[in-house]
């Protein structure tokens, strides 16, 4: 362990291991692949939002030169989906379509040009159905249901849970505050459009290369829909040109490409257009929220009740988990002794929503942090203090039974308060200038897997031989976050070798141990631990053999500088390759494995599967804005952010993740939205994505980025490899509320919704000038009857983590029957 205390690689800003490939154009993304005899697939997509399919006429398309094959939905009757409880997608719709963009037919041609032309020649006859465009509509519409399953009508999922007696908490409060807040949906917009290539192996087996964050789940979906043994399907995840959650579902285009390849016996490639990527979506849910909190005079929360309504789009996707996530993490930053959460997700005829960076938590975090800012003002407190004085303690259990380990939020807050000059500047900047503060927390991977089982969440295999080279195998996927570098660094660190000595083989369901995927910020912590275990085991073997040969106690050997030597006499030792050869002579062919399964969480109630994590990262952020009262336009000149990452494996890459999170957060706060548009109902049934393009879906440019001051707070977490926690998602969360809180400081109006557009600020300013409250935001939360909540006594109340009324509440019909307990992450 001596060298682990003073790591040589971990903690340094080393060059990422995939860096050179990426700056030379050598990285092979999915669309860069080509195979002999490869042909091209395009999907015909529905142009109506909700309809029964009457007929698909391919006669004109068949006549187009180069068209060789059509793939039909009837050929793939099995459904799929990421969660076992919502297997509600068909690879190609053959009975009905549920949104504009739903795929109905695959066209294969010798060239992509011909395939594209042929999709336009296909005629689909539809019988149109009524459409549902919002949560409100879903709540009142019972005819023309989008799906046959769901908790009720067009409500996909409805949950209600109460931890402690929330109502009596409100009675004890000095101030009870209520807010209704809206968060518009938005999308990942990874620069790379999804692509996949399916290559038949000739013996009934098939390999699918894809831009996916979750090859393991693509593998499962392919086996199910193609009705092939999983062992005969190989999924290889190419490095993703950005993912952000948008490549975390198994997608229809991957399955159709595989089906086509099997049907015609040729490699089949598909690359989506940007518009099609907007249809795949799985982006941030639009969420309307109502939050009611009772505070003591000193700002302490006594009770909180949060309601969320998610507009889910046309399919389940991760939606059940997303719904729970809008309530799960509200308790991990500040003490919330009593907490009630009601959430629902509606089906609508829109592209399906799913997980985007922060999965389900940025929306309620926005609501909470804006709400706290208002509470601080109502109580005459500094918004920094209402946070600082009531932090959830480290090594504690929250009211909703989440186990908190390390917790560096206090230090994060101090850093940004000091760095931004908050105490001297807040509330005192010149007219139009303002500061806003907000905090957040995020998971380091979910405590339970999507498919409930006792197997590890990730595995790493190491193969070593006399060459001194070390090959590391893991199912993880490099999506830009730096997971390859973390994997290599963990192994190199333990074995005392160079990053250069390591060869990685990742994201290949045939060759690498299962890793569940690059989502929910799980990779560094989980894969890192598995890599450490595998490397420590390899080190042990080598040490035993070397100890024998050198006649030195194994515990006295040091692995460093590509050598293995005696700590007390460094001259006494051998090169790493000699050491491996020694071990190979003693033990035969060398290989070790490591795996990781998160610790069990204390919650024992239905829904307790969402929220637990081996560790939580924390962030605090101060943002400065400059608002023009004349136009409502505003800029963000500077951002201070502190992130508790536990321990940086590579601080340069950690900073990059923080900066990228700020970028995404500012986009969501200021401009990015996945708005849908209906045409006048009298004239048209259309319900379309307003701006499915790179130009009109606004993503900030180089000229829109502020100065960023980043502080990395390192409070190593015992559950993290080298103490490391996540960084990819957490730092995004405080950005949106900090912007809106800063707008308030600058011009005294509340924008209770994002994106906060200039016209909203002007409208709120006008309202204020007329003597109104000076607020822009949603007026009301939809009327929902939540029924009896699941009641779970809190740890403070002496609860045991179980619900006391599980029988009365029962199991709603909301999930598909397959595995009602299976929705965990």
């Amino acid at each position, binding site marked *: 362990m001596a060298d682990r205390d003073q790591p040589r690689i971990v903690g340094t800003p080393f060059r*990422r291991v*995939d*860096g*050179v*490939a*990426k*700056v*030379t*154009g050598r990285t092979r*993304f999915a*669309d860069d692949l*080509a195979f002999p005899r490869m042909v091209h697939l395009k999907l015909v997509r529905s142009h109506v939002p909700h309809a029964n399919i009457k007929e698909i006429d391919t006669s004109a398309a068949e006549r187009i*030169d*180069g068209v060789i094959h059509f793939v039909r939905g009837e050929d793939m009757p099995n459904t799929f989906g990421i969660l076992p409880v919502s297997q509600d997608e068909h690879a190609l719709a053959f009975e009905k379509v549920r949104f504009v963009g739903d795929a109905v037919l695959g066209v294969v041609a*010798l*060239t992509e*040009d*011909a395939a594209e032309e042929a999709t336009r020649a296909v005629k689909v006859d539809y019988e149109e159905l009524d459409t549902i465009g919002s949560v409100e509509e879903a709540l009142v519409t019972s005819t023309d249901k989008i799906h046959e399953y769901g908790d009720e009508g067009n409500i996909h999922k409805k949950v209600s849970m109460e931890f402690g007696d929330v109502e009596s908490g409100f009675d004890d409060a000095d101030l009870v505050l209520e807010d209704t807040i809206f968060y518009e949906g938005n999308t990942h917009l*990874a*620069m*790379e*459009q999804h692509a996949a290539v399916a290559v038949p192996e000739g013996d009934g087996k098939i390999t699918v290369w894809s831009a996916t964050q979750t090859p393991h789940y693509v593998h499962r979906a392919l086996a199910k829909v193609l009705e092939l043994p999983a062992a005969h399907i190989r999924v290889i995840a190419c*490095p*993703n*040109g*950005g*993912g*952000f959650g948008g490549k975390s579902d198994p997608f229809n285009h991957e399955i159709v490409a595989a089906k086509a390849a099997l049907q015609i016996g040729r490699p089949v490639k598909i690359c989506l257009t*940007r518009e099609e990527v907007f249809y795949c979506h799985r982006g941030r849910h639009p969420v309307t929220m109502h939050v009611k909190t009772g505070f003591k005079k000193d700002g302490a929360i006594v009770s909180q009740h949060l309601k969320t309504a998610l507009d889910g789009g046309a399919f389940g996707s991760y939606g059940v988990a997303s719904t729970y996530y809008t309530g799960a993490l509200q308790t991990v930053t500040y003490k919330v002794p009593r907490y009630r959460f009601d959430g629902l997700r509606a089906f609508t005829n829109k592209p399906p929503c799913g997980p985007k960076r922060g999965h389900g938590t940025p929306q309620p975090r926005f609501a909470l942090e804006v709400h706290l800012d208002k509470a601080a003002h109502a109580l005459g407190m500094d918004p920094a203090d209402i946070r600082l004085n009531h932090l959830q303690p480290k090594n504690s259990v929250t009211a909703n039974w989440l186990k908190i380990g390390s917790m560096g939020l206090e230090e994060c807050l101090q*850093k940004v308060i000091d*760095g931004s000059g908050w105490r001297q500047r807040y509330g005192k900047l010149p007219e139009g200038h303002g500061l806003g503060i907000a905090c957040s927390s995020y998971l380091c991977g979910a405590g339970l897997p999507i498919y409930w089982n006792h197997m590890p969440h990730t595995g790493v295999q190491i193969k070593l031989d006399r060459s001194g080279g070390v090959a590391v195998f893991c199912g993880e996927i490099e*999506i*830009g976050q*730096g997971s390859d570098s973390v994997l290599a660094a963990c192994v190199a660190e333990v074995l005392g070798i160079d990053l250069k000595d390591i060869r990685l083989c990742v994201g290949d369901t045939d060759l690498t141990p299962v890793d569940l995927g690059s989502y929910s910020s799980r990779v560094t912590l989980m894969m890192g631990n598995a890599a450490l275990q595998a490397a420590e085991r390899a080190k042990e073997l080598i040490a035993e053999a070397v100890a024998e040969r050198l006649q030195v106690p194994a515990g006295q050997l040091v692995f460093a500088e590509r050598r293995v030597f005696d700590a007390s006499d460094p001259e006494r030792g051998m090169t790493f390759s000699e050491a491996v050869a020694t071990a190979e002579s003693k033990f035969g062919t060398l290989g070790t494995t490591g795996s990781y399964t998160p610790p069990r969480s204390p919650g024992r109630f239905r829904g307790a599967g969402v929220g637990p994590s081996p560790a939580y990262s924390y962030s605090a952020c101060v943002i400065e804005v400059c608002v023009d009262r004349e136009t409502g336009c505003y800029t963000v000149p*500077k951002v201070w952010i*502190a992130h508790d990452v536990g321990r940086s494996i*590579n*601080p*340069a890459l950690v*900073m*990059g993740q923080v*900066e*990228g999170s*700020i970028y*995404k957060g500012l986009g969501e706060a200021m401009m990015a939205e996945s708005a849908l548009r209906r045409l006048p109902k009298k004239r048209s049934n259309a319900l379309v994505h307003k701006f499915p*393009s*790179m*130009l009109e879906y606004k*993503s900030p*440019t*180089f*000229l829109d*980025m*502020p*100065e*960023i*001051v*980043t*502080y*990395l707070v390192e409070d190593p977490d015992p559950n993290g490899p080298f103490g490391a926690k996540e960084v990819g998602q957490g730092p995004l969360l405080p950005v949106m509320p900090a912007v809106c809180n800063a707008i308030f400081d600058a011009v005294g109006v509340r924008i209770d919704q994002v994106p906060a557009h200039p016209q909203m600020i002007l409208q709120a300013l006008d309202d204020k000038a007329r003597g109104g409250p000076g607020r822009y935001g949603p007026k009301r939360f939809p009327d929902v009857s939540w029924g009896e909540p699941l009641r779970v006594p809190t740890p403070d109340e002496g609860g045991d983590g179980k619900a006391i009324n599980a029988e009365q509440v029962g199991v709603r019909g909301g999930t598909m029957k397959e595995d009602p307990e299976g929705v965990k992450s």
Partner: protein
Amino acid sequence: MSEHVTATYRVNSEGRTIAHPAHHTLLEVLREACGLTGTKHGCELGECGTCTVLIDGEPQLSCLVLAREVEGAAIDTVEGLEGRDLHPLQKTFADLGAAQCGYCTPGILMAAKALIERKPTPTRADVCEALSGNLCRCTGYIKIIEAVEWAAALCRGESGARPADASLYGVCKEKPHG
């Protein structure tokens, strides 16, 4: 099948005579006919900058260039950037983590190369402006800006210390626009 043309292109200083569909863009010809897949695409409509290559030294969007219109012109792609060693831009991008997923990187490298050749000492505002037609969804741009500045210093022959070290752990950084 569509009409084909045979044309000679000068890509990374090498002449290539290629037959390709007459209506194909330079992007398609580079990726599909020349096998130079280093040049990426994100929209094919001029909206993202990912497909940027140099045509006679100027950054242009290969998705909006009809290939046959640039027959004879000097075309430079990311594959030509590296000589025996990495180009300074490649070194600094790799070292600072300015390429995360790396998908926007080839286009940004080409735009940056044109900038530092035309303006060896660009201001930070120049870097932001010159690259403002290239979107990156991963980095938040900061590391890219630092990498371009560092590479410019290296190209000027300055020893050029790694810039990001100074900004780690909360030491204030310079303003992107200042």
